[in-house]
């Protein structure tokens, strides 16, 4: 039996780059049809916020068109079942099964030899580890599948390794946007099919699981948008032109769908002004941070200029209560003094 496992669609979210979540869902459903998926699991956060009735109707129609595939999903911490949630009043088509209850229930599907265990979020945060002591029914012939949403401290904490140890044939998880699989592949964090946030680094996509005598799991990346974090180490002697060239190299080709978050580290010449504005203007750069230090040795300087203005200046800053800001101030001060010394 072939299962498509996805989660964290976040329909309704604004994505500055890439395709809209609706497009992604359409794409995924089309793909499910193409590869003959019998069952589609959506492990929560289908919507980014409380769903509207018209949105549910739209999704419902899309799901209906996926027949004969069966679809099982639950609500996550973003689209949790609030008291006035439209989820409560909505009737889904025959092939769609919504695990809406707060407690974990086992849903035995009619047309497939599958029992899906899961529940929905009824609050924004659910810090209880509800999956810890869960066990499937040993007597059943069905495939026992767990549909879980969570995995961090405030949201039903668990690790993929823990879930692997429960006796489910497959644990389909959602909530963490980064796709991940357990060692055996029997527990999978689907990840968002497309990065939602610029901090969602790496490839994103969907998972196909083939349940047979054994469970085989495969990740299928969806291209078109990928964020990556690059550290660019500076050295004394580098000038603006060098920095810009390094930034361009790291940023990737326009049109590739690859976007970079650049972080400058290392030591640079004190008189080098990082061209952050120009770096940010590069097409493939979504974020640029300066964590580099000017090439000063503060302790040496303090010693050299003890009793003189620079020494006094650094000493005065060393006494400041907010040391984080003070260190930055020392850096700026030294840059300024060095700058003013050059006549």
């Amino acid at each position, binding site marked *: 039996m072939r299962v498509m496992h996805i989660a964290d669609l976040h329909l*309704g979210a604004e994505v500055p780059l890439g395709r809209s979540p609706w497009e992604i869902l359409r794409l995924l459903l089309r793909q499910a049809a193409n590869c003959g998926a019998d069952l589609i699991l959506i492990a929560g956060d289908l919507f980014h*916020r*409380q*769903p*509207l*009735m*018209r949105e549910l109707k739209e999704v419902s129609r899309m799901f209906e068109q996926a027949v004969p595939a069966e679809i099982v999903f639950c609500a996550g911490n973003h689209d949790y079942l609030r008291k*006035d*949630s*439209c989820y409560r*009043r909505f*009737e889904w088509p025959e092939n769609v099964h919504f695990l809406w209850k707060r407690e974990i229930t086992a849903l035995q599907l009619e047309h497939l030899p599958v029992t899906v265990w899961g529940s929905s979020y009824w609050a924004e945060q659910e810090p209880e580890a509800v999956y810890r002591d869960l066990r499937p029914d040993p007597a059943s012939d069905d495939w026992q599948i767990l549909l879980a949403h969570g995995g961090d401290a405030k949201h039903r904490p668990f690790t993929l390794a823990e879930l692997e140890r429960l006796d489910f044939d497959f644990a389909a998880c959602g909530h963490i946007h980064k796709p991940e699989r357990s060692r055996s592949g029997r527990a999978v964090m689907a990840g968002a099919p497309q990065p939602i946030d610029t901090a969602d680094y790496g490839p994103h996509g969907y998972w196909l699981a083939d349940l047979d005598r054994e469970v085989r799991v495969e990740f299928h990346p969806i291209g078109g948008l990928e964020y990556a974090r690059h550290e660019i180490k500076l050295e004394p002697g580098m000038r603006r032109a060098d920095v810009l060239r390094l930034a361009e190299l790291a940023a990737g080709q326009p049109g590739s769908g690859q976007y970079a978050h650049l972080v400058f580290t290392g030591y640079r010449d004190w008189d080098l002004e990082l061209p*952050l*504005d120009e770096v940010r203007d590069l097409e493939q750069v979504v*974020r640029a*941070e300066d964590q580099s230090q000017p090439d000063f040795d503060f302790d040496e300087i303090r010693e050299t*200029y003890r009793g*003189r*203005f*620079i020494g*006094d*200046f650094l000493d*005065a*800053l060393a006494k*400041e209560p907010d040391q*984080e*800001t*003070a260190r*930055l*101030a*020392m*850096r*700026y*001060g030294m*840059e*300024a*003094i060095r*700058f*003013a*010394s050059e*006549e």
Partner: protein
Amino acid sequence: MIIRHAKIDNYGKLQNREFDFAPGINVIYGENEAGKSTLQSFLKSMLFGLEKTRRRNELDEYSRYEPWNVPAWFSGELEFSAGDQVFSLRRNFYRKEPDSRLINRLDGEELSVDQGDLEMLLGGVSREAYEHTLAVSGSGNYPGAVLADLLRDEMQNMARTGDNSFRLSRSRAYLEQKKRELNRRGRELQAERTRRTERLKDREEAIREELERLEERRLVLQDAQDRGQEQLRLDFFDEEEDRRENDRELGAEAGNDQPGDGREDDRPETGWHNRREEDRPETGWHNRRDDAEDLAEDDWYDDEDDAEDQPAGGRKWDPGVIIGVAGLLICGLLVQMHRFPGKAASVLMILFGVITIVSIVRLIVKGHHAPEDPEEDDPAEEERQEQLRAERERRREARREAQVERRIALAKNAGEKEALEEQIRERRTELSNLAEALRELEVRSEEETEIARSVRALDLAERTMAEQAEKSRGRMQGALEGRTSEILEQMTAGRYHETKANAAGVPVLADDSREVTVGALSAGTADQVWLAWRMAAGEILCREEPLPFLMDEIFSFYDDQRMAETLNWLAGQHHQIFLFCCQHREEQMLERLGIPFRLIRM
């Protein structure tokens, strides 16, 4: 630095003159117009250069000493020692072809004046600084704003490490520039957030307006529904009326039938006291419509027909008859059985007989007042009754039709209201989602937070720099004051021992009894104070290399005692001293004091 020898080729009124100077005190005596000022100017020009400047009203130094005969021949030579080196300096001041040569006499090395070698030997002192400190000319010539500026600059010139110096103002300018850039970026980011917020707020506004409209419509529907319910209630009473009317028409047989009997259960489900909003089933509103259709074929409707079909019967028996007959029978029995005394039995039997007769009579009478009456009426009356009945029937029919229509309208109204509720709920969810999105936008992004921190750090750096500069200035100010006090104390042998600068930067003298500003002192004392001040300032500004004191007629207002004090103090200094005088007073005093000096006559 010690000037050993000066050779003037052509400078002002001096031509081809040579002078040998002593390392200590040199008294240069000359009458007025002998060329003392010229020599002074020459010495300074040799050391610091001479440039033609543009001055509006007075003659600049260049023009003043420019030879009128051969302008190109405007030169001289100096020989001086600095440290343990001896140098030879030749300069031509002709502005069109200025020239200079500086040679180290000991090793022959040629240095460059243009590249600042001479300046370095002089300890980097500017002509201005020199003229306001160690080169004192005239009396009553008090240092003012220029010296104050020089001192302030020097105080800021604090990280001197040989030839490295920096200006505080330039540092601050750098920090300000950085801050401006960061703030600009911060504002950009904030503007972006504001833009997005505005967009969302616009949507929020639009949805709120729609919500208002929907809610207004709901009120209207609610109103209509309330009125409809009210009307239903009235309809119900009308039904009751109709029923009673019917009963009356059908006569006294309307005995046991209770109008409205069993009607309770048949009351329609949309009755005003039954239904409440919350009780509606959680299924789609489309179910409601079915109910509406059901209502058209209502039960109670049919009940009324039943009511008409019921026979309007009355009672056919009377309890009195039974009692009477029963009594008669019992009495008879008792008499037969000889149990009852004859007389009493007769009385009883008569009683019971009477009761029986009366009851029968009553029955007969009632029967007479039955609907048999109408049958006895004449045909005209009957017809009229018939017409009335028909009339009432028509009215009832019309009322019933209207009621059905109202029921249907009410159901439709309820349906529309349900749909409206759904839309209102939808809008409300949208609003709550928007509110969430707006809340998220209120939070500063990471970058903005970092910018805020950097700006704080820049402020801290600037503030700390200014504080330190102020402290240093204070220290230096203190040093200047302290040194002046020392010098003055030395000069006056302890008579005045404290000098401060007041808020205006004017030295204030303090002796044991009072504080006096310089202006209030006698000229001689004032001159002395200013001299001390200048000497102290000179120590600060010319600290790298001890330059010669150039003193021109400074003792004019000094009394003998003061002059003696000052000469003694000067004698104790390690600097070369040039005393330009037009009187013999200084010479004589020096001799009297036993201070060695060289006399040079112009």
